[in-house]
């Protein structure tokens, strides 16, 4: 027998010497978060507070301060984000992912109720001024990051009130106005100017804007709705989803009837369907693929069902049948899933001859958005998405982010706004460009020893009684975690890839190669004398979070 | 090849009634029967399985073995020598506790059997 053995599935030369080193890894939650927030960090501030003499209140304050370094609107995203961070949480298969989204919401609400303030704006302002077009999450994030770096910011918004899609397209029962107002006002309160009801392209051209400000950010969003393109679409009763939601929020007449069909499968379609139910309509949602392919958040779909929204899958409208101006029926075509197309999703194909007619008096079309700007200069081309570089740069001193790159979630927009600001600031000040991607390697799944951690039940987000949902149409359904619940939930974080002071390495190293550092902080507890390592590998195998690793395995 | 003790085939005799002996045995695996011989006839006294011991009387007395022990199937048996046992008891008398307990059970069992036998006569 020769000396080959396998390690991690690959043949390795013997003898095994497994020398340890401390190396921070990127946890799966942060790898998935489009705004790249330091999730492990702010959970750790709460979970490890007793080691640093913080009260729970102080810990929540500090955790909030950490979140807003990346995301100035946690109470908002904590309500609307589909939380991709939780999908790969290491705790998933054990006793459920950490409720990161609910924790973000808790901290956001905590910040509002405690009146916590965003970082101070420096006294000395930089000479350059910044113009921001749009006031949705991308623009607000960009404006915020520039303001705290010391720039005078002016926001130009087409609407009367800021917020973009957050204000117009998200129903009250998901995002109460007071919450959104509080978070937006807090950002604006840093001293930036807001110019409302100004349409860039119409009232002011992009070139004019670029003469006024040294740096410009475009957060135009995707304001135009895609059309179905079927016969009978012209005329009253066919309402774009975003417009329906917006008019409802502004308490205007939406033009919607009593018997509504909603076309689409994303969160806008669900929001529209549930809003229509709150108006007392009977609602059927029609989607051309199957339920499992719906882009909408699963629990939103579930709640929609409970509220009485009917669903019809694998169906697409082909014709709107009117009687004069009024819609009478919609003809739908049965679909089946065929081969996958370029984005990997199976393409729906019509099943010839299978047609059906559904009675309806209104149709809400929520099948995605398109660029809604007019031609303006060389940059803005009507109907074409903006294509900046990875850091958001379109041209010298011109940046973009958010839905104007293509539809996405608010968290992504916030991340793009921040990256663009970091890049813009570096450009203006002649600093080196900041790295776009986190510089820690990604944690491998098997380096977290899930068995080490005690079982802890996942917190149940409190909810209102189901019978009250439609009866109080504008009230939130999901509530915030309690003060005690948040502390328990934070303790569930396994601190993947970063030390959390389990002390096993310190205790069990045969040589005593670990020493406690003088000033500990979350993630930083022990120093390791690498040249003293005897190569037995015990600490690596014991380290539950995977912070300690084999020095010779390239990560 | 793992496993402690010595291996015996089925039907092998560990010791005979009347032999001298100076060790006790603990069964690791398998089964033995204790058989008394009287006037040419064999009487089966009991069978014993894993973790049970026999031959303990030789540790306390210098007399001969009181029964024949024979395996009923392939068996592995560990021997406990007198010197080790008595040395252990000297240092820690409670070592004998389990043996005394078992002997006590056996006396109870034999008393019971004897009483019933006397009754039948």
């Amino acid at each position, binding site marked *: *027998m*020769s*000396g080959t*053995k*396998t390690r*991690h599935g690959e043949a390795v*030369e*013997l*003898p*095994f010497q*497994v020398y340890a080193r401390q190396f921070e890894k990127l946890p799966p939650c942060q790898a998935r978060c489009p705004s790249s927030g330091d999730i492990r960090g702010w959970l750790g501030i709460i979970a490890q507070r*007793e*080691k640093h*003499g913080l009260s729970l209140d102080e810990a929540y304050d500090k955790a909030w301060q950490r979140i807003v370094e990346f995301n100035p609107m946690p109470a908002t995203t904590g309500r609307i984000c589909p939380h991709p961070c939780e999908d790969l949480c290491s705790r998933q298969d054990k006793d459920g992912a950490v409720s990161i989204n609910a924790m973000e919401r808790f901290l956001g609400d905590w910040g509002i109720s405690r009146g916590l303030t965003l970082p101070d704006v420096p006294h000395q302002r930089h000479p350059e001024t910044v113009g921001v077009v749009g006031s949705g999450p991308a623009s607000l994030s960009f404006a915020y990051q520039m303001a705290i770096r010391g720039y005078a910011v002016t926001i130009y918004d087409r609407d009367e009130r800021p917020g973009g899609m957050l204000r117009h397209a998200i129903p009250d029962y998901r995002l109460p106005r007071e919450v959104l107002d509080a978070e937006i006002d807090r950002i604006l309160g840093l001293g930036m100017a807001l110019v409302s009801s100004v349409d860039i392209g119409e009232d002011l051209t992009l070139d004019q804007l670029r003469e006024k400000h040294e740096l410009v950010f475009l957060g135009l969003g995707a304001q135009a709705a895609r059309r179905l393109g079927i016969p009978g679409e012209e005329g009253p009763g066919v309402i774009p989803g975003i417009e329906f939601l917006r008019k409802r929020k502004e308490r205007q007449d939406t033009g919607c009837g009593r018997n509504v069909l909603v076309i689409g499968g994303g969160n806008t379609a669900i929001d529209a369907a549930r809003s229509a139910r709150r108006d007392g309509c009977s609602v059927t949602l029609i989607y051309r693929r199957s339920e499992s392919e719906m882009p909408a958040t699963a629990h939103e779909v579930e709640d929609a069902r409970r509220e009485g929204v009917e669903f019809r899958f694998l169906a697409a409208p082909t014709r709107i049948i009117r009687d004069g101006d009024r819609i009478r029926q919609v003809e739908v075509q049965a679909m089946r899933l065929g081969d996958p197309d370029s984005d990997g999703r199976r393409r729906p194909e019509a099943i010839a001859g299978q047609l059906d007619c559904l009675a309806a008096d209104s149709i809400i079309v929520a099948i995605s958005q398109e660029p809604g700007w007019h031609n303006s200069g060389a940059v803005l081309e009507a109907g074409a998405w903006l294509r900046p570089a990875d850091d958001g740069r379109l041209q010298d001193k011109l940046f973009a982010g958010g839905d104007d790159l293509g539809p996405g979630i608010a968290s992504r927009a916030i991340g793009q706004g921040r990256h663009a600001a970091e890049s813009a600031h570096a450009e203006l000040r002649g600093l080196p460009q900041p790295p776009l991607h986190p510089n820690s390697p990604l944690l491998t799944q098997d380096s977290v020893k899930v*068995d*080490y951690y*005690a079982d802890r039940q996942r917190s149940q987000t409190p909810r209102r009684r189901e019978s009250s949902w439609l009866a109080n149409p504008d009230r939130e359904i999901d509530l915030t975690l309690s003060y005690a619940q948040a502390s328990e939930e934070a303790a569930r974080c396994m601190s993947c890839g970063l030390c959390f002071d*389990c*002390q*096993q390495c*310190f*205790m*069990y190293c*045969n040589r*005593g190669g670990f020493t406690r550092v003088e000033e500990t902080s979350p993630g930083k507890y022990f120093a390791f004398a690498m040249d003293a390592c*005897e*190569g*037995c*590998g*015990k600490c690596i*195998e*014991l380290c539950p979070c995977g912070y300690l690793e084999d020095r010779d395995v390239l990560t | *090849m*793992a*496993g*402690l*003790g*010595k291996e015996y085939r089925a039907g092998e005799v560990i010791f005979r009634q009347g032999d001298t002996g100076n060790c*006790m045995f*603990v069964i*690791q*695996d398998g089964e033995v029967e204790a058989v008394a011989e009287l006037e040419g006839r064999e009487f089966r006294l009991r069978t014993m399985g*894993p*973790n049970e*011991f026999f031959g303990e009387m030789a540790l306390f007395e210098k007399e001969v073995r009181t029964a024949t022990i024979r395996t009923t199937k392939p068996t592995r048996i*560990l*021997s*406990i*020598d007198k010197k*080790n*046992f008595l040395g*252990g008891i000297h*240092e*820690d008398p*409670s*070592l*004998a*506790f*389990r*043996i005394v307990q078992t002997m006590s059970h056996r006396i109870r069992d034999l008393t019971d059997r004897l009483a019933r036998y006397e009754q039948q006569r």
Partner: protein
Amino acid sequence: MAEGLELLTGKAPKPNKAEAMTLGDGSRVAVIGAGPAGSMFSYFFLSMAETIGLDVGVDVFEPRRFCHRGPAGCNHCGGIVSESLVQRLATEGIKLPDCVVQRGIESYILHTDVGDVEIATPLMEKRIAAIYRGNGPRSSEPLDTHSFDGYLLELAEQKGARVIPRLVTGVRRDEGLMTVSCADQFSDAYDLVVVATGVNSRLTEMLENETAEFSRADRTKTFICEFFLGREVIRETFGPSMHVFLLDIPRLEFAALIPKGDYVTLALLGDDIDEALIDRFFAAPEVRNCFPGGQVPGHVCHCYPRINIRSATPAYGDRLVLIGDSGTTRLFKDGIGAAYRTSKAAAKTAVFHGVSAEDFSNYYAPLCRKISNDNRVGKFVFSVATLVQKARFARRGILNMTANEQLQEDSPRRMSGVLWDLFSGSASYTDVFLRTLHPAYVGLLLWNLVSANLPGGRKAQKGNGHVRH
């Protein structure tokens, strides 16, 4: 480590035996560490308490799991359960299951530069158990093994011990009781704290600094590694024998190769072991020839565990006792046997007498003293062995004497017995030493020293190390 730890009341009602330092119904005992000492203490303590109807709770603090392969689940040792311990455990009714015994050892093969000799007992019985303390070496294949430490812990749990998977970081006196605190801020109060952490954990160091009531054991470094050869190859090359070496390598005290299942464990004892010493050992032809192809293969797992070479003093205090390697253990050999003896003595003291320093001094310390005194003799004996390692004529004489004894059916096997008990730790060093003073032994040894060194007088052949079985 004690800074910043707060006393949090545990869930059980606070024990109220602060004045009388004896255990009564409702008392609580904390055992720190679930190695053999900790588990055996718990097992015997609960058994004894049961016999007198004493209702005491035992909490065993052990955050590691012995189901892990490699060093994470292992307490680092050669893995030999001596003959005397095997017998004692069997007498106590503790039978080591087959999945725990990786190999039954029935003989020793002594390798020197002047020849090899096999030392077997006439019993033809496997009475030494080669075990894994953890769940086997680090490997990518699943192993059909079971940890020895894990098995003993299961026995303790069956007797009613409760395992708490937390890492203890501090022990201190608090209002007459002992408070145990853990890395995750958990803490609880106990009537008695039994320290069974061994000398490779930092706890005794921290306790020594915290309480200033005792000085901890002195330690030296050893080397353990595992070679993968496969069951068949091991059966052919090593058989059911432990291979020991007396080589002229400076600073090397003792070396043994212990076959277990698919692996062979090497244990090296010496003075400040380092890579140079290890490499020299691997280069020795006597060692190389033990392996197939005359080559020492790469090892798959290794560590440098520390061992206790001088007892903690004192190994007890009020409501505190140190057992196993943390307290007093036999020098170099039969550490597990010493753990059995000290854990049982401590258990007896706690159940039948009390838990004050005086009680431990009266009923536990005598055993510790006995072992320490015996260790002094042992130190002397090992230093003689070192001399033998250096003197070729001595090696020849000893080898010859042993070989002669092994050839004769009814020889009293004096040298074989001395070597056997020395290698296996089956008898006390005092016992071994006294036997070397026996006139017959001395006479035969002298005769062999002369005759073996005369040309043509050697019985032992220079073997090539491959012993077939």
